[in-house]
């Protein structure tokens, strides 16, 4: 059934994880993600799951990866400094193809920054924090409802693609309270990882692919599992063969990048024929939408594209929406990280205007409105 609740973003992520079937949480308390850790410590007991507070974020993501390899949906929650510590093992999860979910509640940085304050400056870190070539999935909610829905989606995608999925929340969204419609497990479409049907003898953990994703057993199952962060053959034994290495890293990218239509698509609001287009994500997309609605009611035309999947970057849709625009405003609370991505899509820099804020406060509708009016005049 569907129930209505008044929840914070952090609470919504936690209930969503439980309802998506997560039964393992390992974490290390960090502002502004701490409430997820605290709520998990209560809920996991109620749901016969496991909560463990590890000695640091490195161990937290490691335990999550271990639990997932044991066959249990698992997740953690952190913020910038903790995310930095998790980077090596997120890369391991990408390489070894371990489903897991990381809720990254962005706070003001760099370094310890301002622990309690808001920012959207982890766009690049979530993607490129770990060395080596690989793809991964990053989703950005813009409301508490979205925090719930996209967390459920994050678990589905991590199981479907056997990859780490990062939910890019932020300190504002984490603590704002909004009404949420909670669809309970019976109402949710939940994806479960595929299990091998091969004979046990001679089973190759990375040998059977379904849409470029290996069909793997879990530790303790009768199909023997071999997992390593080294380049590996289909057997899971390590290899330094150049051909095997190339095939592996190319598949790690391809298995996600070639299936982008399965990821949450960007949402377009406002006037389709507008020459003024906003591109935004997260809570900044809320302010942008408010401003777009105001101008479309009385004055001039504007449109807004809200990115819900940040990585892989939805280049095709962004290019399509921006192609007819005279000016594109990129609204984000950082120095212009998504703006750089638009340039990499081939959009001329002179058509772009960054609406940025770096004072640890959220971007307001009136600030976006002013920028729109300036560009219209």
């Amino acid at each position, binding site marked *: 059934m569907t129930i209505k609740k008044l929840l914070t973003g952090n609470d919504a992520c936690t209930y969503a994880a439980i309802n998506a079937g997560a*039964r*393992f949480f*390992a974490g290390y308390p960090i502002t502004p993600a701490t409430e997820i850790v605290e709520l998990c410590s209560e809920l996991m*007991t109620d749901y016969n799951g*496991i909560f*463990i507070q*590890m*000695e*640091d974020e*490195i*161990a*937290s993501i*490691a*335990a*999550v*990866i*271990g*639990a*997932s*390899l*044991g*066959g*249990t949906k*698992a997740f953690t929650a952190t913020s910038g400094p903790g995310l930095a510590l998790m980077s*090596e*093992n997120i890369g*391991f999860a990408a390489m070894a193809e371990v489903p897991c979910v990381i809720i990254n509640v962005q706070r003001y940085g760099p370094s310890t920054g301002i622990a309690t304050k808001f920012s959207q400056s982890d766009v690049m870190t979530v993607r490129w924090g770990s060395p080596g070539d690989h793809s991964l999935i990053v989703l950005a909610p813009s409301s508490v409802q979205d925090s719930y829905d996209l967390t459920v989606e994050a678990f589905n995608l991590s199981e479907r693609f056997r990859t780490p999925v990062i939910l890019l929340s932020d300190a504002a969204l984490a603590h704002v309270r909004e009404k949420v419609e909670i669809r309970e497990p019976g109402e949710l479409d939940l994806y479960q990882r595929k299990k091998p049907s091969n004979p046990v003898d001679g089973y190759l953990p990375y040998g059977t692919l379904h849409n470029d994703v290996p069909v793997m057993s*879990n*530790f*303790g*199952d*009768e*199909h*023997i*599992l*071999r*997992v*390593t*962060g*080294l380049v590996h053959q289909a057997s*899971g*034994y*390590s290899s330094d063969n150049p051909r095997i290495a190339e095939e592996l890293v190319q598949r790690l990218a391809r298995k996600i990048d070639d299936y982008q239509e399965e990821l949450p698509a960007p949402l377009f609001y406002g006037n389709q024929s507008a020459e003024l287009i906003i591109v935004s994500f997260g809570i900044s997309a809320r302010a942008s939408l408010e401003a777009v609605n105001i101008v479309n009611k009385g004055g001039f035309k504007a449109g807004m594209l809200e990115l819900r999947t940040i990585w892989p970057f939805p280049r095709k849709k962004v290019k399509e929406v921006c192609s007819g625009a005279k000016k594109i405003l990129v609204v984000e609370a950082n120095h212009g990280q998504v703006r750089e991505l638009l340039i990499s899509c081939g959009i001329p820099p002179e058509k772009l205007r960054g609406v940025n804020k770096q004072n640890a406060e959220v971007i307001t509708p009136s600030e976006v409105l002013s920028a729109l009016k300036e560009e219209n005049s």
Partner: protein
Amino acid sequence: MPLADYKQYVAMDRLPSIWCPGCGNGTALKALALALAELEIPPDKTLLANGIGCSGRVGDYVRCHRFHGTHGRTLAFVTGIKLVRPEIKAVCFLGDGDCAAIGMSHFVHSARRNVDIATIVVNNFNYGMTGGQFSPLSPHNAITSTSSSGKPEPDIDICKLADVAGANYVSRTTIYHVTEMKNYIKEALGKKGFSFVEIISPCPTYYARYNKLGNIIQQLEWLKDKFIPIEKYNQMEDAEKENFFWRGRLTDRNLPDLLSAYTLGSRG
């Protein structure tokens, strides 16, 4: 294949191994396989987890479940595995760098939590895979590729550390003492909670060469002569102790392991 056959755990078709002649890692792997066979633990309920370095390659030669994580973090990964799959017999096979340097924090906390993991550390006194640099367990004044005039730092007794941290079982032996090694591993595997066996091993390629310990026969004799039973060691005067190391059982107790404590504590 009869169950009590150690070869069911070893990927014989993948031998010879990557390890140098005289290295102790293969001997320790055989002792582990023999202990698993004697306890009749099925390969599909056995997990061998390892870290990075020479010991980290052990998983390439086993036929049971195998996990090979990032440097130093093996125990943290396996904590997650064990909490959701308690029926698995988990063995962490680590090196001295992996366990006592980069992974020291996880080692101490795993012992403190008393996670049901048997941890074996093959201590060859240096980082072999990267060319013989010192580890926290290299003896004071040891010559290594990063301490050409002698390691300026003291070492640490990793067994005593495991004991005070809360491990249920702690013992130390050497590659020379093959039967004792198999028996200690068997005891560790049979113990509920965190169990720990330190195995002192030769590194003929780097440590033994830098420290002029002679050929592999002389190195094994060095292990035989220098590592004496803990009872005998404890009776020695302090000055005499400086010339020897102890081997034997340091800890054997039955404190509740993490999952039992978790179940009792939060659900009781």
